[in-house]
């Protein structure tokens, strides 16, 4: 029987290092992989950069501003819907 871990995978991978002058960058990406017998789905997105300056190393996250704004608006509308629902229920009870 196929394991769930074989069907759905959530992988963080490091790409090949890019060296520019004294700086070495290792890009990282996160991929959601869903497999089924005759097909599949892959969603891959950049997550961070590991920057090595020689004397120090830095972890620079890559922020997807568009997605964050979209999720923020979705969250706001959900909260608004919950508040409206509670208010209408309270009004109905007071009548």
């Amino acid at each position, binding site marked *: 029987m196929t394991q769930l871990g074989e069907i759905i995978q959530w992988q963080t991978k490091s790409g090949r290092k890019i060296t520019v002058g004294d700086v070495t960058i290792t890009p990282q990406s996160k991929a959601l992989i869903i497999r089924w017998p*005759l*097909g*599949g789905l892959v969603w891959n997105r950049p997550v961070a950069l590991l920057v090595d300056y020689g004397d120090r190393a830095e972890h620079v996250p890559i922020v997807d*501003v568009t997605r964050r704004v979209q999720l923020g*608006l979705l969250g706001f509308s959900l909260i608004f819907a919950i508040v*409206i629902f509670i208010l209408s229920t309270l009004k*109905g009870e007071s009548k």
Partner: protein
Amino acid sequence: MSKGFSEFTLSAIKSQEEGIELVEKLFDVAEPDAVYSEPVTSGDYTVITACEVSVGMGFGYGFGGGTTPEPVGDAAESEDTPPQQGAGIGGGGGGGGGAAGRPVAVITIGPDGVRVEPVVDPTKIVLALCTTLGSMFMMMRRMRKASKR
């Protein structure tokens, strides 16, 4: 019939193998090289773009064959019209897929260090804002209507 069926089965297996090969190529998109571009250098600056990529596909197929049932009764004994045996095979398949990509950030490596500048998609944000405002307006309207009853 058996020769035709064998040829058909072989061609179906070949198509299936080609489909599986195509699906295996799909999973190459899960590698980091698929989201980060090759570095481009201009003067002191090197630029790399980072994109979000999503790909999906699937296919299916089916085939089968059959023969007519053996004649029984009068039809089997009739001398005028000898019983005819019929056989047939058939099959089919289909598939579909889609891919999408969107720039997320631009990475600049220069004398002042490494900078990550996000790429904002105003169209998507405006569409999401319009949807949110629309749903809020609809909720308010329904609430007002309900309170009037």
